[in-house]
Structure formats: C-alpha cells, structure tokens
C-alpha cells in the first residue's frame, strides 16, 4: 500500500510531471489575466504604454527580412499609385479650378452669415504629422502604431485624420510610439451628425464591417449618400470633420462607409485640439 503511494508520489514529482504542472499553472494565470479583464487596470495600461516602443523596437529588428520584402513591394505599388494619381490629376485639373472658386465664395458667404448671426468663432488648432510604423487595421480591434519627431506634443485622445477624413484617436503613448484606435475598432464610439439636417447619433465600430450609427431619432429622414461628420460633442474631436457617407440603411441600422482608408496612408495628421484644456 505504502509502496504504491510512494510510486504515485514519485510519478507526480518526476521532472516531466512537474513541467506539466508548471505549464498548467501558467495557462491558468494567462486565462485569469484574459478573463479577469486585466487590461482594464491602471497597471496594465501603464505596462502596455511603457512597453509598446520596446516591443516595437524588438519586432522591427527581428522582422527586418519581412520588412525589406514588404517595403520593396510597397515601393512598386506606390509608383503605380503615383502614376494613376498623375493621370487622375491631369483629368481633374479643369474641374478643380472651378471647385476652388466655389469653395472660396462659399467660405466668404459662411463668414458673412456667422458675422450676421454673431456666432462665436470655432477654436483654431494646428497639427503634427506622424508616420505610420505598423498597421493592425485588418482586425476587429483595428489599431495603428505611429511615430513622430514631436512625440512629446502628443496626448491621449488626440484626433487623428488623413487627407480625406478622420481616422480615430490616440489611445496610448509612450516616449517614441503612440497607438491610434481606429474608427472601425469595436471599442470605438464617435458622436456624429448626418446630412445637412444634422441628425445626431453615435457611430460604433464593427470590426471589418462598416461602422453603424445608433441612437438617431429621425432615422427615416436619412438617405443613402448623406454625409457623416463629427458633431464635436464630447470635446475630443473638432466639429465638421468628414467621417464618411451613409452606405446602407437596413431598418434602424445605418451603415457608414468611411472616406479614409488607413491602408493607403503612410502619414497621418494629429490635431492639436484640446477643447477642455483651453476652456478651463
């Protein structure tokens, strides 16, 4: 009896069993971190923000071969894109000159109306250009990593825009690298207005699907093709930044096609918009 118990104890304490038990313990710790939503704690946020640039540096060195291949392919694609854009530019040159005149006259008219209505002028803000160093946009938790020479001027919740429209906001940053949470990320929420009638709603990211706008009261008045812009509510994003267009309406579900495609960009603009800090 004692002999068999000793054998059992010996089996449990054998090196392979100990490694097996250790692996199970680590697995349980990992599961606890994941299911216990450890990432929501301040410790995890600090850990993530302080180690992002370190992990990026390691990744950059380790993935140098794939980086070289990728940049080669990207250069060829860029050349093709430049050629297409040049053709497009030549075609649009004439129409652009008339559009420019329209924009100037429209701006003058708006300035006159604002003056007549005695409206408070919108807050002015400048921007910082930043380079995209890693793109994780093809996931339902879409983010990008960016690097800037003026990283010290960046702050959390800084709006990020491209040439055509808004992209998202800075969600975490450390000394060298910042992470931008994209609009199609399932954690993204953005107050928007739809169409010239300014129907208010909240745009919610849907991963690889187009984002949807919820909490719209008069959704029946919205049509496919209506422009979606930021409302400025919440104070994170400035008002009237182009977000996209209404692509589909399925009952109360309004789907928005974003105007900006992050996969086509190499640089982004970070708007130095601090509504609350400037109004305190």
């Amino acid at each position, binding site marked *: 009896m004692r002999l068999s118990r000793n054998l059992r104890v010996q089996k449990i304490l054998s090196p392979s069993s100990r*490694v097996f038990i250790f*692996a199970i313990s680590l697995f349980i710790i990992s599961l606890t971190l994941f299911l216990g939503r450890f990432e929501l704690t301040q410790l995890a946020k600090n850990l993530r923000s302080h180690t992002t640039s370190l992990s990026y540096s390691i990744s950059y060195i380790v*993935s140098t071969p794939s980086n070289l291949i*990728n940049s080669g392919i990207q250069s060829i694609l860029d050349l093709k894109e430049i050629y297409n854009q040049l053709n497009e530019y030549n075609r649009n040159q004439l129409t652009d000159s008339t559009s420019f005149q329209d924009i100037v006259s429209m701006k003058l008219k708006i300035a006159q109306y604002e003056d007549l209505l005695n409206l408070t002028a919108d807050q002015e803000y400048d921007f910082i250009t930043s380079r995209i160093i890693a793109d994780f946009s093809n996931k*339902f938790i879409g983010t990008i990593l960016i690097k800037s020479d003026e990283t010290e001027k960046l702050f959390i919740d800084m709006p990020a825009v491209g040439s055509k429209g808004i992209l998202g906001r800075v969600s975490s940053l450390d000394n060298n690298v910042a992470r931008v949470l994209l609009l199609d990320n399932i954690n993204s929420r953005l107050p928007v207005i739809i169409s010239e009638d300014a129907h208010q709603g909240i745009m919610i990211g*849907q*991963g690889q699907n187009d984002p949807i706008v919820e909490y719209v009261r008069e959704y029946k008045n919205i049509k496919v093709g209506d422009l979606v812009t930021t409302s400025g509510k919440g104070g994170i994003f400035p008002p009237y930044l182009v977000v996209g267009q209404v692509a589909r309406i399925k009952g109360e579900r309004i789907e928005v096609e974003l105007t900006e495609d992050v996969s086509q960009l190499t640089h982004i603009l970070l708007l130095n918009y601090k509504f609350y800090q400037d109004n305190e």
Partner: protein
Amino acid sequence: MINFRKGNLIFYFVLIFIVSSNIVFNSIYFDLTLISCLIIYVLKWSETNWIICILLFVLGIYNDILVSTSFGYASSLFLCFYLIDRVGNYLSIPSNTNIRFTIFSILMLILFFINYFAIYFIYNTSILLFINIMPYMVVILLYYPLNFIISSIQTKYDRVK
C-alpha cells in the same frame, strides 16, 4: 526532440520572428497568432523543459502588447496548444498525424466560435462570418505542409545528433 540547451534554437527564433512580423503583415487571410499556435502544436517538444513554458507565456504577452489584444489572450492560446500536445504525450495517445489534425481543426473551430460569440454578446456586434473564418481555415489548410516541413527538419536534426 527540441532541447533549448542543446542549441536547436531555430524554432524559437521562428516563433519570435512570426510574432514580430505582425508589424509588417496586415492581412485578413493570415493571422500570425494562429500560425504560431499551429507551429507550437506541430513541434515535438522536449518533455522536461521549464523554459518552453516561460518562453511561450512571455511570447504571448509580447504578442498581446504588439497587437493590442487583451493581456493573456495569446499566452493562453500558446500554452493551450502546448498543453494539448503534452496531454496526448502524457496519456500515451498514439501520435497519428490524422488524429492530431482532426483535434487541431476542432480546436480551431471552437476557438473561432468562442471569439465570434464573445464579440456578439459582449460588444453586441456580429462580425462577418466569411472574412473572420478565413484565417482559421488558412491555418487548418497549412497543417499538413507545415507538419511535413517541421517534422523533416526535426528528424534531420535528430539524425545529425
């Protein structure tokens, strides 16, 4: 068998390389975390090596920081696939490639549905089924070719040793 001390470090570097390549490759068809899981599952691990468990745990955390997934997601996946391999070995289940492939495919499908329903119920969002199942299918399709490559490298290494 892979042994950390004996110098066969190639697969450790391959794993680190694949996880690091997340900053370069951004494809809807290839999920590098799942490909790492496949490599971990296919490899023949040394039975008495503590470092493997720690390395997989740290690699998972590194992956989570890089890709911005929840802490513990990748490490629990890596350790889960490592443990399944170990359990089979511990219980002396014959290592038939077809049985292992079936177990891997079932696990991948379970993982996909857990992800799908978690997003559906927690975020109230129904992600596109076709696009999101693609990386899982690609990994299942890669099982045999990767298994062949890794097994031949390991057999060659054993013979040299």
